[in-house]
């Protein structure tokens, strides 16, 4: 199995999303991940560079645009979390509930410290996923090349593990986006193989639309959770 720069970038960005907790880093890493995915697809022999002299294929450009859109949606939402909307409609019970949530969130933030133990589970699950992503292309190859197989297995597994180990709503969304990127790569790689029926415009279009819709849904839910609990922590959703 040979690894080129795009696969390494894809691996590092997905692995870092799994490990890191700060949304400022993970959202940037998501953009890097989409960029690497576009680069990886662009250099595949089944992709024709159909966009003039730049040597770019339209499919790779679509992936890049999708990535920019999803990242922008999540970043803009995260940047505007602190704003309050529709508070004028709230009754006094709702406003008291919000003040309580604000105090609880402030208390939680003041006691929050970076503990190494919080990273142990994501780290070792990431190691297990990495081993699985290296072994699976050998015992169960699906894509035309082992590199592509490794890339989609790693994206899907790291996405699932990001969802499983996530401590906040935004990170669950990042996990889902990694998974959808994985199946996007699988579809593009497998359907372009000679034995397959070929790439179709409609599924490709819908894949990109679904990823953007997913980013919108996550942004909306994250905004609602933050507006209600003043934190994105999932543990707060199940308290009381």
């Amino acid at each position: 199995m040979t690894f080129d720069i795009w696969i390494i970038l894809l691996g590092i960005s997905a692995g870092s999303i799994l490990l890191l907790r700060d949304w400022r880093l993970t959202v940037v890493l998501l953009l890097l991940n989409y960029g690497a995915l576009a680069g990886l697809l662009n250099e595949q022999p089944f992709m024709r560079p159909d966009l003039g002299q730049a040597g770019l294929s339209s499919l790779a450009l679509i992936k890049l645009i999708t990535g920019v859109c999803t990242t922008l949606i999540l970043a803009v939402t995260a940047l505007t979390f602190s704003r309050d909307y529709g508070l004028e409609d709230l009754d006094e019970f709702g406003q008291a509930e919000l003040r309580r949530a604000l105090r609880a969130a402030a208390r939680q933030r003041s006691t929050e410290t970076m503990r190494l133990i919080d990273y142990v589970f994501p780290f070792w699950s990431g190691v297990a996923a990495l081993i699985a992503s290296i072994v699976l292309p050998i015992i169960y190859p699906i894509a035309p090349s082992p590199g592509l197989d490794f890339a989609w297995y790693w994206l899907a597994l790291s996405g699932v593990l990001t969802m499983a180990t996530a401590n906040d709503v935004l990170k669950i969304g990042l996990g889902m986006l990694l998974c959808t990127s994985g199946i996007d790569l699988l579809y593009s790689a497998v359907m372009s193989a000679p034995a397959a029926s070929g790439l179709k415009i409609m599924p490709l279009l819908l894949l990109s639309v679904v990823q953007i819709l997913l980013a919108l849904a996550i942004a909306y839910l994250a905004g609602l959770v933050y507006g209600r609990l003043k934190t994105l922590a999932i543990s707060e959703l199940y308290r009381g």
Partner: protein
Amino acid sequence: MLYLLLIFFPLSMAFSAFLLRRLPRLAIALSIGTLIVELLLAVQVRVDDPVRVLGVTFLLSPLNQIFLFLFLGVGIATLTAALIVPHGENFSAIGLLTVGQTIAILVMQDSFVTALVLVAIGLTTVLAIVDLPTGAGVLVSRQTLATALKYLVLMVVSGILLYIAYVLTDIFRPGELPGRISPARFILALLAAGFALRMALTPFHSWLVDLISYAGSLAAILIIALPAPASLLVFLLTLQSFPTLLFEGGQALNVLRIGAAVSALLAGALALTAITLRQRIAYLIASNCGIIFYGFASLSLAGLSGALVGVINLALAVTTVLISLALLEHPHERLTAESRNDLFWRRPVAGAGVLGGGLALIGWLPFPGGTSSLLVLQAAAAIHWGELLIVLAAMGLAALTLVQLAVQYLIGSRDIPSDEEPPLLGETELDRLPLPQPASEPLSSVALISILLAVMLAIGLFPNVLLPTIEAAVRSLAALHAV
């Protein structure tokens, strides 16, 4: 072009309904009008007349035409109920988007596209869960937010499993690579897990229980009555498109069938031990889904016909039960419905709706659920008596749950007004407040529930109106001859 119009007309009207969201009655009227126009369009579409657009085949089979009318009917009933009971600010827009996407599933004959549209439905309907009424002075509850998040994650995971399965089916060649584990089993496992999540089969049912417990009734109808039956049609399309899966699937089909029967049994047991009225109803729906899935996995004429009649029954029963439940709770909120035992006597028509819908869910004649149950039992009897016993036990548990539910919440002893207290010192008859009278049921809600019950009874009493079309569709399945 009628196919595209069928899909994009409700989608475009959803934007108009969104703009009118601050005028809910106008938005609902517009949405109902849109669905009535859709019905007229649906009548114009020629069945079995394929059209190819952007590499995707559009086709409306006679079976899918039945489901098209069913979904439009459910949509109209739900939007009409929204005129009576409280609903979210964007309910009509989300309703139209959901109907448009469900119609897309019915007419598009491409597995990849339908899997993605199913995910898109999940992304749309999740908004209905957290949608609050216009100007509501309350916050979305934590449980509702958790429900929405859980639903979103599970629907995306389900979509990913289905998509991987469809990619694998495209490159799968039967008999290739002997000695290796057959990909057919892996693909069937992916498909089964994906559809089990969508159909809320136990142990993948938790989203359904949370949804019915914490989301609004009308939002729950949009999420259960439209996408769940559509999912089963997608599974049918999958087996129709890839019958080769069943040649190599072998024992995987037995596992699928037994798993579905056990799932129905477990859901029935959980329904019996559930605490609240809404939880019981949710488990009854999960149990019904298990039985439908069993009939489907039996891959026999009787089983598949039973499953298809079952999903028609599921859509109608869920709509009836949840609208009735919303009317029982309105305007006294959920606490009253949970804490009373004489709901049937207080609101006879809404109570009858819950009872009638419940009877349809447990597969009682003369509702269509009865026809479905008989066909599924016939399929189970043809396979193995052990499986027949499991299915019968699941149905028995569901029936017991409905009896328990009726006694606990619906037909308990009527409140008898206590003897009039003697007047206090200096109090006259004029000082006394009149005794509160239970609010009578609005005529519109009486009419709506009566129509829904009448439609279910009509289909149940005259199943031969639908059965020949369903059986013809099942007979045409290559999958049926593959096993």
